[in-house]
């Protein structure tokens, strides 16, 4: 089954379950089978505590699942962990290289850990490592956040893995470094590497081939960002007024509004199914009943973030 498909699907997740405490709900509780194709950039988004990290740790063979399993290149994570470790690059959310070794020493060490030479796979990391070159002698602990991230990525790529796991790689990294990282990932994807990445930034999720929205240990939807947005299927309005804070409370008190949340410099409201209101009628109600001034209401296009916010409602 999974083995025969392993050429097309380097990662197959099959009903993974893991709970840390007996009486608590499981941290990860995936009922379904998820197949991730070669060269796919697979994103996982979800609130803190959704089980993203636990899922990554299971895939990286750091945590054994209670039940279910997953296959990396056709190898079972429960039994073949020694083989998997040579196939996998894992970059945890926290910086976890040796802070007291220099940039070069870290890279050398992790290359030799995998029995490789830096020159062997330099083409793979070259683009990223060139930016680190001027700091080669600096201690890894003394690098800036973005530089640390680059080094960590280099270290997890140095053995040319076929599957790359990145757990929140851009948390605490400045926007330009974030953009660079995603450009690097796009390049790696071109070379046929399968990448699974979790993120809290919606604009990043947009760059993924497919996105899994995760909550309470489950995948709620798995689809391409466009399909997720097109399946939103509810009417969305953007509302502004001079008193934004009172506006939020007032909007929430209205019968026709099922959900209201801040979105950038305005509030997004999701209208209840079959509520016969228009942008104009909402604006009138806000001005007359709640005496708001400077009211501005317009129809809005759903974004991935809107899908994400409404997911939490379920």
């Amino acid at each position, binding site marked *: 089954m999974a083995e025969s498909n392993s050429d097309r699907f380097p990662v197959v997740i099959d009903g993974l379950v893991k709970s840390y405490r007996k009486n608590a709900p499981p941290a990860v509780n995936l009922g379904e089978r998820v197949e991730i194709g070669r060269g796919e950039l697979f994103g996982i988004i979800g609130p803190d505590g959704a089980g993203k990290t636990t899922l990554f740790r299971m895939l*990286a*063979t*750091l945590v*054994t699942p209670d039940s279910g399993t997953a296959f990396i290149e056709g190898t079972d994570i429960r039994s073949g962990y*020694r083989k998997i*470790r*040579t196939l*996998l690059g*894992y970059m*945890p959310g*926290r*910086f*976890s*290289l*040796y*802070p*007291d*070794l*220099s940039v070069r*020493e870290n890279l050398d*060490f*992790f290359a*030799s*850990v*995998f*029995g490789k030479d830096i020159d062997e796979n330099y083409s793979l990391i070259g683009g990223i490592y060139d930016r680190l070159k001027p700091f080669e002698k600096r*201690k890894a602990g003394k690098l800036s956040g973005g530089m640390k991230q680059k080094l960590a990525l280099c*270290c997890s790529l140095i053995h040319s893995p076929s599957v790359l796991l990145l757990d929140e790689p851009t948390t605490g990294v400045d926007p330009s470094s974030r953009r660079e990282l995603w450009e690097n990932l796009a390049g790696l994807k071109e070379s046929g590497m399968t990448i699974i990445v979790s993120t809290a930034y919606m604009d990043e999720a947009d760059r993924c081939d497919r996105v899994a929205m995760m909550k309470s240990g489950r995948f709620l939807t798995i689809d391409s960002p466009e399909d997720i947005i097109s399946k939103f299927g509810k009417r969305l309005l953007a509302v502004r007024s001079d008193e934004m804070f009172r506006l939020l409370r007032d909007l929430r008190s209205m019968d026709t509004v099922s959900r209201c949340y801040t979105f950038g410099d305005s509030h997004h409201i999701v209208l209840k199914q079959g509520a016969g209101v228009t942008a104009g009628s909402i604006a009138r109600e806000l001005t007359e009943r709640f005496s708001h001034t400077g009211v501005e209401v317009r129809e809005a296009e759903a974004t991935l973030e809107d899908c994400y916010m409404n997911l939490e409602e379920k």
Partner: protein
Amino acid sequence: MSPFRYLFIKEFKQFMSNPFMPMVLVLLPLLLMLLVPLAANMEVREIKLTVVDRDCSALSARLVDRISKSGYFRAGPSCMTYPQAMEKMRKGEADIILEIPYGMEKALESGKDMEIYIAANAVNSTKGSIGGGYLSSIVSDFSAELSGREGHDASVPLKIVPQYRYNPHLDYRLFMVPALMIVVIILVGGFFPTLSIVSEKENGTIEQINVSPVRKRDFILSKVLFYGILGVFAFTLAILIAHFVYGLASHGGLAEIYVGAMIFLVFMAGFGLMISNYSETMLQAVFMMLFFVLIFMLMSGIFTPVSSMETWSQYVTYALPTRYFVNILRAVCLKGSQFSDLAFDYAMLSGFAVVINVLAVVTYRKQR
């Protein structure tokens, strides 16, 4: 390159990356061995004595003279009354008060018994009790001499002549130095590898190792071996100081000492590994380590002889590996004992080393 080799090289680079650690490695045995024996001297000398001489006779003057000649006491100006002397003791100007009663000379001449009163300040209990002991033995010597010479008693009083072997001058330093050599091993061989493993946990680097093909066995072994070598280095430094500064271990016995030290290092490494299995942070590791190390140091005869402990705690010492190692070190350094004399201690120490390392491996496996 074999995994073990680059792990070992990595340990070395990490250790050298911060000049603080190599400095600790050299300064720790150096300061411990050079300063502590000089400062922490438990020998009792210069006891401040105040005499309340109510007799003021030739005899009492002879007694006081005798006491001050013994070399242990420094007699201050004598007081006329006991409360005056007590006042001096309160101020810390007197450690011991000797009260000679009125009419002592006369009473002794007429063959009567007299009582001499000794009061010792026991805040410093060693000084108090040992000083009191010295003083009473001097006084009883004196009285025995008196009775012998003046012919009141024909029988020669039996006198105990203590003979201190192997440490003839009762030099406390010779007792201390082997103990400090053990402390060096405990600190370098126990704390260093433990903290190094736990810091990998704290930094999350252990996860990076765990997702790599490196075997845990190689990972742990590289640390144990690296810090083992550092332990031997620090211990060698300590031995050199012991030999050239304190003149210890001049009878040879280096083989005995090093074999003992190696076994003890293996024990400490296994012990440290076990602690690191149970601690997530440096703080936890340090406190747990400290707890056991204090018991090892205070209860196994390192600083105070086992024979002077309570009976129940003497049995406890059999369960402490340090007891055997300190026995080995003292016997070899002070008596020049050989392997055959210390077979039991070596066997027990090895037993502990094996058991703790088995436990360490078992608890390590259970972690995941």
